[in-house]
């Protein structure tokens, strides 16, 4: 068909263009553009499915069963007829449930207020206040606890708290006649639990607050200084209002983070000393299901503890997404084909 004869058809799209390659996508092309994008995602999708989705389903199902080391292999925990809500009832009837709940609340609230929020903000304010290089130096130092292997980091703290004559704090306290020279971690574990986690947690807020403060236009700060505001007034009326979204973000995000973290506590006190002294919710789930400390691996019971945290986590995470509108950071692709 010639161009001329085709044009006579009055601009309607041609039904059979000369080369199908250009006129219509070939089946191969169509497949490629349909599934090619998913090829890029496939490895991530597999790993996410294996280690996020399936585990969520597993712990949910497990939490309805009473699978433990004793009936492992015989109990068909995946069958609905073996499901019940007993594990959840068991959690709330647990003699130590109020203690654990209280511990968790105390741990989250005090670490968050003292460190992950307040210290983070104070360090950010201080390090942006002093000379640039110095500020940078101190921020980098604050990053150290996060980068140090947790086992080593906890070792340092245990040594700081150890009994005389080895303990570093006792080296200071005993000559002053304070305390008995015993292991401070045994005597008062909570301050250490909070300090240990807080010194790691603070760097998250510190980094976010710092970049938010540095993003405040210099003019604002100058104007406030020219107006004769004191440093504290500048903070109160210029800086804090300017970084209220980062503050909200850090608080909400770190609440969830603290609620579910237990690695440092596990290394430092393992929930002790004694029964449940510093045991928090997430650690209980781990202990019940994955450590032999309490005799049996109570996978079903431990999973029930975890499921409650997962539910809180999913709800909180989806709320963050709404509030902070992260999904609006997507830009439409500016190339149509694959």
């Amino acid at each position: 068909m010639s161009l001329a004869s085709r044009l006579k058809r009055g601009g309607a799209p041609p039904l059979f263009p000369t080369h199908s390659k250009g006129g219509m996508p070939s089946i191969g092309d169509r497949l490629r553009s349909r599934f090619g994008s998913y090829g890029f995602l496939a490895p991530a999708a597999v790993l996410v499915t294996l280690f996020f989705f399936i585990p969520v389903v597993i712990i949910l199902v497990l939490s309805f069963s009473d699978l433990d080391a004793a009936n492992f292999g015989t109990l068909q925990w995946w069958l609905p007829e073996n499901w019940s809500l007993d594990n959840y009832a068991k959690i709330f009837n647990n003699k130590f449930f109020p203690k654990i709940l209280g511990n968790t609340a105390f741990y989250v609230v005090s670490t968050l207020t003292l460190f992950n929020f307040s210290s983070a903000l104070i360090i950010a304010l201080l390090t942006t206040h002093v000379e640039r290089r110095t500020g940078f130096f101190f921020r980098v130092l604050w990053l150290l606890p996060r980068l140090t292997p947790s086992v080593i980091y906890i070792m340092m703290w245990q040594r700081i708290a150890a009994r005389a004559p080895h303990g570093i704090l006792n080296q200071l306290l005993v000559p002053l006649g304070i305390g008995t020279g015993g292991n401070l971690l045994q005597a008062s574990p909570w301050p250490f639990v909070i300090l240990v986690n807080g010194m790691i947690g603070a760097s998250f807020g510190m980094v976010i607050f710092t970049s938010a403060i540095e993003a405040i236009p210099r003019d604002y700060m100058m104007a406030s200084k020219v107006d004769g505001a004191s440093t504290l007034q500048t903070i109160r009326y210029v800086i804090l209002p300017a970084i209220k979204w980062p503050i909200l973000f850090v608080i909400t995000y770190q609440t969830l983070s603290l609620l579910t973290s237990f690695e440092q506590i596990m290394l430092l006190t393992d929930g002790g000393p004694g029964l449940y002294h510093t045991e928090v919710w997430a650690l209980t789930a781990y202990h019940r299901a994955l450590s032999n400390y309490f005799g049996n691996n109570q996978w079903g019971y431990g999973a029930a503890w975890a499921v409650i945290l997962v539910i809180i986590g999913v709800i909180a995470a989806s709320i963050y997404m709404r509030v902070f509108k992260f999904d609006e950071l997507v830009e439409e692709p500016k190339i149509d084909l694959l």
Partner: protein
Amino acid sequence: MKVKLENLSKRWGKVVGADHINLDINDGEFVAFLGPSGCGKTTTLLMVAGIYKPTEGNIWFDNQVVNYMTPKDRNIGMVFQSYALYPHMNVFQNISYPLKLKKVPKNDMRERAQRVADMMGIGHLMDRRPAQLSGGQQQRVALGRALVKEPQLLLFDEPLSNLDARLRLSMRGEIKRLVIELGITAIYVTHDQVEAMTMADRIAVMKEGKLQAYDPPDELYDQPRTLFVAGFVGNPPMNFLEVEVSRKNGDYHAHREKFDAIVPTEQGEKTAGKGNVIMGIRPEDITISDEGVGGEIYVVEPLGRDDLVTVQIGEAIVHVLADPVLGLKMGQNVTLDFSTHKVQFFDPQTEKSLLWAE
């Protein structure tokens, strides 16, 4: 290669990039897409390149519809405003990248890249990284990369807008010469009407995704088909006055408050009795003379060769290019002669020309 755009549209939801564009490009023709920023020039060009898929309509290369052809198979070369060089590759690697993808043998590749680089005057810079080159040199590398695979169609997207004024002038000439010499069909996108006027065989003027006019430069200038084209092409821009044309004693007159000018018969015949129309007249077509329409000079801006004189006539403002020897001063009263056969008239509703509309 001939190119034909047929009812070509691109939309993203409610956003319209290109709106039912129809145009033909002849083999070896140099066409400019001209229009203000955001009018859809790049969108149209990227559809021709195969980067965007048309929402509607067809793109023809010779007598083949290429809507679904990948950019790779279209055999085109493209130069971008940002040059879009690969920062981690040196000049040689940049220029030869299209050949490498075509699996051209090593020696052949080296020779062809060198030939193109020499042609662009950057043959001695082959080992440099883009970051070590000046803007003009980067532009040449980008051109070389577009040319090396001997494309059938060259696409330019505002290639000169990142260069300084002097370099822009010389590159303009060079690109024009190169394209004519190679005889390749070319589409050149620009928002700079001087570039379009000086380089292109035909100019497609666009506004809000729609094709406004598609004419050779002189026609575009002398016979603008829409109000938009008239106002967009030409610098300083055309003056527009709302007037009414009527016949008095055998002559046609355009009149409004404190304004009465004689209109050539040819234009008068087409506009008389149509109520309010928009009269368009270029600053260089208005002369300062002893008789005509009186007004007061609002400000005088010397442009070197001419003075740009702003004259207030009643409520209206008119720009006039005047000879500096006249020594016009602010506040002075002058009379302006509007009687030129180059005067244009437009319908205020449709904004189409009353003289040249098909």
